[in-house]
């Protein structure tokens, strides 16, 4: 019974939102607002159940983890954001989380985004037994990366053999990349619709599996 009512409610909301394709309407507006309220309400419950209770209140009141009062108080300073005279206090928890986060992220970001990528771009173009399209691919990959980097390098005018030709090749490579992204974006958006049609025709109407 619970599931049946649930699926009917879900299906009706689904149809109500699709009515937006014809015209903006009050049911769509209602759904739009509900989503905001429910998701935030869900997050409140989640944060209480997964952080505040097991990682703060229970250790403090149930054991001797009294040091946890410090992050608790620091976190509570966020409230001051709503009291104009002491709103500056809310900068403290932000500073704590952000400063340390930046420090932690620095060497690892350097590795993940820069060093590993540079390392992976330096590979042999050809090895024995490699099919021609892979060799061609490796050439495109290595010189394409370089050319695209030149295109994004704005400190020098894009003129001459290196910067001029490089940036021209770079934009062609970038366009191929964006084309692929557009193709995948279409695929992704259609997939989302497929999910809803499966819900309506499968879970709700049982016309399809």
């Amino acid at each position, binding site marked *: 019974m619970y599931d049946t009512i649930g699926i009917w409610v879900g299906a009706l909301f689904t149809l109500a939102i699709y009515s937006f394709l014809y015209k903006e309407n009050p049911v769509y507006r209602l759904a739009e607002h509900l989503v905001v309220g429910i998701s935030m309400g*869900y997050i409140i419950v989640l944060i209480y159940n997964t952080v505040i209770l097991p990682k703060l209140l229970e250790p403090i009141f149930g054991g001797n983890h009294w040091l946890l009062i410090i992050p608790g108080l620091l976190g509570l300073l966020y409230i001051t954001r709503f009291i104009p005279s002491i709103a500056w206090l809310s900068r403290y928890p932000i500073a704590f*989380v952000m400063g340390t986060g930046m420090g932690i992220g620095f060497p690892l970001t350097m590795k993940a985004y820069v060093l590993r*990528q540079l390392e992976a771009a330096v590979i042999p173009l050809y090895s024995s037994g490699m099919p021609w399209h892979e060799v061609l691919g490796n050439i495109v990959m290595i010189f394409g990366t370089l050319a695209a980097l030149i295109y994004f390098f704005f400190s020098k005018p894009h003129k001459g053999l290196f910067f001029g030709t490089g940036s021209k090749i770079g934009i062609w490579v970038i366009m191929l990349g964006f084309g692929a*992204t557009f193709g995948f974006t279409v695929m*992704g958006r259609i*997939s989302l619709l*497929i999910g809803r*049609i499966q819900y309506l025709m499968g879970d709700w109407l049982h*016309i399809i599996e």
Partner: protein
Amino acid sequence: MGAVNIWEKMLNLDRRWIFLGIGIISIVFFLVGFGMPVTTTKEVENIFDFVNELGPDDAIFIGFDFAPGTQAENMPMAVAVLRHAFHNNIPVFMTAIVPLGQGMAVSALNYVTDPAIDGHYERVLFEDWADYREAGITNREDIIAAWERDGNVLPEGALGWVFEGRDYALLGYLPLFHLVILGMTNSIETQFPVDYHGNPIGEMPMLKEHKSLRDVDLAVTNAASGACTYWITYAREKIGLPIAFGVTGVMATDYYPYIQSGQIIGQMGGLRGAAEYEVLLQENGITATTDKAFRGMDVQSAEHIFIILLIVIGNIAYFAGGFHKKTRLKGRG
């Protein structure tokens, strides 16, 4: 002049006709599906092969790092990997980088363990097998033997038992998840003292055997945002944990550099990626049939053809109607 009017009219077509076309095609091609074969790519095969090599002594993380908005793409891939892990008795830690991902993890678990579905796994909650744990029975085979000895029978259509705390742990969401990943490289329990249901993680046999990410063999993040790269930055680069991506179509092209650099072992891109994993599960006898992603591929084919036709018609109308010249004239003032 008359010809131009036709092209102009065509380009000014009320977009609701296009909407209608998209809707009708979806419905029709679900009703008359052809079941066209989906070939697999090495990006997905690599993930499948990696998981397939793992067993009860190993463990994986499955990240439900997406909100309901993209569940149509992300859920099938997460479900496919979850089924694979359950089939191979690989303990699974389920986490979420985004808050609503927790609900998605619950939903995936409910789906894979739904008794109404043939080929489901029969779930045994943590408190239901507490007596065995207290008696020191924590080995999977021993738990099943004791459980069935006590009169529990595997329902018809079920593929096996899954014991909470032995075969899976629903850890869920925590804020600042990149730091949580980093914390888990030292201790999972410090970050997650309890699971989603409030069960103490420390009492779970799977956690006693896999105390930190260093004791884990793979993390598969099914994501709808760039947050999936947290797993690379904070786990792969810190301790060398193998990572696999399951990402939405919109993001998939962005992460090919990670595949080539070896920072991820493979990637499931969009619904197609999920369909490939489903095909591999079926071909290897892990599931009897494919699931939602594969079933959606016929519609996906038809819609792509329709959109390509729209692009072609739009371009024909644009050039035949001479609009390209008009724009140029306008541009020259």
